[in-house]
């Protein structure tokens, strides 16, 4: 029943706007009066300028957004190059600075950063078999293993006189 009544009201209003004419005039006059008062003081030229500057800002942010991928690519490239240089420098500092490589034998070397010492054993076949590429020369480096955990048992077991970390470097 209420639904029917509501529907009837809607149809009456939708088709018969003049039915509300008096109310409409009063309310609309009130709203018009306020709107006119509010809009009376507006300098439309300045208002237009304000919108225009907001649009300029929007243009700028749009442009910077479109440039972002290029900037990002360049930044990534620079970062990657810096990383390569950094790794190369790190490797370089870990290389032995003074290492008397004279045929085979033993040598004690010091690192540039003076992080420790290692014993180096060079095994060279004196060119034997190198002609056909089947024979290789080797360097065996023994250096103390760094202590990562302050565990007395681990220190005793792995970091004593026999606890050398053995690295093999394949030369050629």
């Amino acid at each position: 029943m209420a639904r029917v009544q509501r529907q009837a009201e809607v149809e009456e209003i939708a088709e018969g706007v003049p039915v509300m004419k008096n109310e409409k005039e009063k309310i609309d006059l009130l709203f018009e009066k306020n709107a006119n008062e509010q809009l009376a003081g507006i300098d439309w030229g300045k208002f237009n300028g304000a919108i225009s500057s907001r649009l300029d800002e929007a243009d700028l942010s749009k442009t910077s957004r479109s440039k972002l991928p290029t900037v990002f690519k360049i930044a990534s490239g620079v970062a990657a190059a810096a990383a390569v240089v950094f790794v190369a420098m790190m490797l370089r500092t870990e290389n032995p600075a003074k290492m008397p490589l004279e045929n085979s034998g033993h040598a004690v070397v010091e690192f540039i950063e003076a992080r420790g010492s290692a014993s180096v054993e060079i095994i060279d076949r004196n060119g034997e078999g190198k002609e056909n590429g089947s024979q290789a020369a080797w360097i065996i480096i023994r250096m103390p293993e760094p202590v990562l955990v302050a565990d007395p048992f681990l220190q005793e077991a792995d970091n004593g006189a026999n606890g050398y970390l053995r690295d093999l470097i394949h030369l050629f």
Partner: protein
Amino acid sequence: MNESREANSSDIGRLVEASQAGDRGAFDELVRLYQRRAMRAAVRILGDANEAAETVQNAFVKAYLNIDKLKEPRRFEVWLLRIVTNAAISQQRSARRRAERIKVINCHEDKKAVSLVDKAVGEELKGAIQAAMQKLSKKEAKAISLFGLEDLSQSEVAEIMGCSAAAVGWHVFKGRQKLKRLLKEYL
């Protein structure tokens, strides 16, 4: 007759198409044509020119950034007024929330605040309309705002609101009933 209505729909369509092609000057012309109408719609919801100006500026920026999405260039006015009224309603709701928070914080100072209210008739009417519009539902506020705009038919209001013309009539009717009760001392 307002400026936006003086320009015929094919002119508007061309300006919109040019804007979509990246012609900033064309969009500036659209702003010039529609700024007054947009402001009037926003003022009718918000009751205050300063709040309306901020809302309309934001609406134009939004329209500018999304102009590519407008499928029918000739319907720019409907599209723009939809953006403006939605923005005004959002602004009105957030203003109401702010006001409610302030009211809770400063409830002990209410009497003092009332005694300091500007007695100017225009300011009083503005405040009364703002308070009354906040009592309406979103659809009622939109319908009241748009229905009173010059040269905007009920079917155009319906298109802006995304509902039937009959529903617009219903929202206008209900909105007016509430406003009549809330603003009876000014009628």
